[in-house]
């Protein structure tokens, strides 16, 4: 089994799916000869040609709109948004057409579309190369929202996303693109949407997170363990819409304490739903209040991004707080 990084794993997924199914096409800015600015689509144009690996004009509204039309007609497009921060021009297309065409048409048309792109901070990307905007999509029924944290999941989730018959927003934490390497099977496997992964087992606190925050959480958990002997169970949700309630509940049955960590902003952010849902429906499982750690409610700054995003100190502080209970 090759040891690959996330970019390579994503590339494998695309290549395998394009081989398997001639209806799969890739489109976006610079996905062809350039192979994407992060090289996720590298080499695909050589194997599949310009008809299936399509460099487009510079408009996210156009890329997504055209991809929806392709999906309706019978292709299975994977549309790349060069940085997910640029997706807002396509917001109308995503909400009104990608997410709601099935409903609008009484179920006659489906949109098997993946909209994928690098998200999240940690590479000094500033306001528009760093965002975690999953909350906007989580509030949009008809979509799936996915974010892998490691190469294995990236490949399996992307393959699965290409196969489902609804539109998927597929967010790739770019700070992980080349930093994590692991063994990834060359066979055809998928990771189901809506299933979390237990990153680390533990009995004292449940820490729910996803994307690059998995690694920050691991560091904070290690410190907590070393300093206090607490064992932290870390759950990587992997899919945000729908999120894996059962995984969280099972863990809470052991721990009774919940910390949610995400890179998206706090206010009306993705963690709010999880926190509210658990406190509303599973209060009996909780020893004390839930704690969210998130980016602050400001635009994403170029400077001091590590202070802006959840960092080890902030996660550790949250663990300390919930362990009071």
């Amino acid at each position: 089994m090759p040891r690959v990084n996330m970019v390579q794993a994503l590339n494998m997924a695309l290549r395998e799916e394009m081989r398997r199914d001639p209806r799969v096409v890739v489109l976006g800015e610079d996905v062809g000869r350039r192979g994407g600015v992060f090289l996720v689509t590298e080499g695909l144009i050589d194997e599949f040609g310009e008809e299936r690996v399509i460099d487009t004009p510079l408009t996210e509204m156009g890329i997504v709109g055209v991809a929806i039309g392709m999906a309706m007609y019978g292709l299975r497009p994977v549309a790349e948004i060069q940085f997910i921060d640029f997706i807002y021009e396509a917001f109308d297309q995503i909400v009104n057409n990608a997410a709601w065409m099935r409903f609008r048409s009484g179920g006659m048309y489906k949109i098997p579309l993946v909209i994928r792109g690098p998200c999240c901070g940690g590479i000094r990307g500033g306001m528009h190369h760093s965002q975690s905007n999953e909350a906007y999509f989580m509030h949009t029924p008809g979509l799936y929202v996915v974010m892998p944290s490691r190469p294995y999941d990236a490949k399996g989730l992307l393959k699965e996303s290409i196969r489902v018959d609804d539109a998927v927003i597929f967010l790739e934490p770019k700070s992980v693109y080349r930093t994590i390497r692991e063994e990834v099977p060359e066979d055809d496997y998928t990771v189901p949407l809506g299933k979390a992964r237990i990153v680390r087992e533990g009995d004292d606190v449940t820490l729910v997170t996803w994307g690059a925050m998995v690694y920050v959480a691991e560091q904070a958990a290690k410190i907590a363990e070393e300093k206090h002997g607490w064992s932290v169970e870390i759950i990587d949700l992997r899919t945000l819409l729908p999120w894996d309630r059962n995984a969280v509940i099972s863990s809470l049955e052991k721990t009774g304490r919940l910390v949610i960590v995400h890179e998206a902003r706090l206010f009306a952010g993705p963690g709010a739903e999880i926190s509210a849902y658990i406190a509303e429906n599973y209060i009996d499982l909780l020893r004390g209040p839930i704690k969210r750690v998130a980016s602050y409610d400001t635009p994403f700054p170029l400077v001091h991004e590590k202070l802006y995003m959840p960092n080890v100190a902030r996660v550790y502080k949250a663990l300390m707080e919930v362990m009071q209970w």
Partner: protein
Amino acid sequence: MESHVSEKVDLPFKPLPPEVLEEYSGRLREALGLKRVIDEEGRVVDEGLMPKLPPSEMREIYEYMVRARVIDSWLLKLQRMGRVALHAPNKGQEATAVGTAKPMKPQDWLFPSYRELGAYLVRGMSEEEILDRALNTIDDPLKGSDFAIYGNRKYNIVPAPVPVGNQIPLATGAAMAAKILGHDTVVVAMFGDGASSRGDFHAGLNFAGVFKAPVVFVLQNNQWAISVPVKRQTAAPSFAIKALAYGIPGVRVDGNDVLAVYSVVSEALERARRGEGPTLVEAVTYRLGPHTTADDPGRYRSEEEVKIAERYEPLKRFRKFLDSQGILTEKEALQMEEEWNARVEDIVKRVLEKPGLPKDVFFHNVYERRPWHLEEEYEEFKESLKVAEELGLELEE
């Protein structure tokens, strides 16, 4: 690596070659002209553009226009009775709708806007289906999703979006897909003058030009976007001229002349089918009715204006032509209209009797499989109906 040095780097620092100027001068003329086959009195003014159709088909075209007019007036009536949520009348624009749909093949796809009754009929949708949709009966093919839209996969008609114009890039995408799959399919997108201002128009036409997609864009310039006149929509002298921005041909045609629309759209369909790419057709027409049943045009346009526009009314005009050609007399035409009126009246009665959609209809068709939270909400919903019953609450009016 494919170098595009010679055409791309050397060239840009020179004026474009004279052939380009010539080609675009020709396009400019088409974009600023007006193609017509018959004038407002039904007299033939351009034999060359006359579609080669047997009298029976001419008659059929007229019949579609009549049917569009009849079902339009029934929808208006039903809206006033409170049975239809909203209707966007297509009175005055029947020639464009029918002239556009008629030359399309069954495998072609139509992405209409919300004002195309004539086109739906031509593609095979029946009055009954239109009424099922408008009245949201148990047979509504779109399951009560939105108002004023019609569509059915059976006829390759994609239900319109209510947000103006966002079907345009979808049409381009479908056309690109058809091309990639090697299908003999052309896609037609219909929309209004107002839609031309949207980002979607820009993206849809630009992609179509770049990828030579087999798609025909039919812009129905009916002079108004609700209360906004075309001069407030664009400073360009025509909408067809916008095609030049995308490197595609743009043709301005009299949209109240069904034969001219038929001809121009036919040609555009054939171009697309031959692999020569997209066309923008500007059909100049006039919305004779209100924008929708919720509109009050008296606030922004004069009756005098509407009266002038009525001179160009497409049914009367085509009728004069048919009469003069001995294809259909005025009397036969009148009779045809009466017959359809009676037929539709019967259908209306029948459809009004049908039950509505089930109470939980909106829980379907959100996803292929409902995720757990929606499943939970569905359970809560069913319980809430019980609570309402217990309380004796009438939740719907």
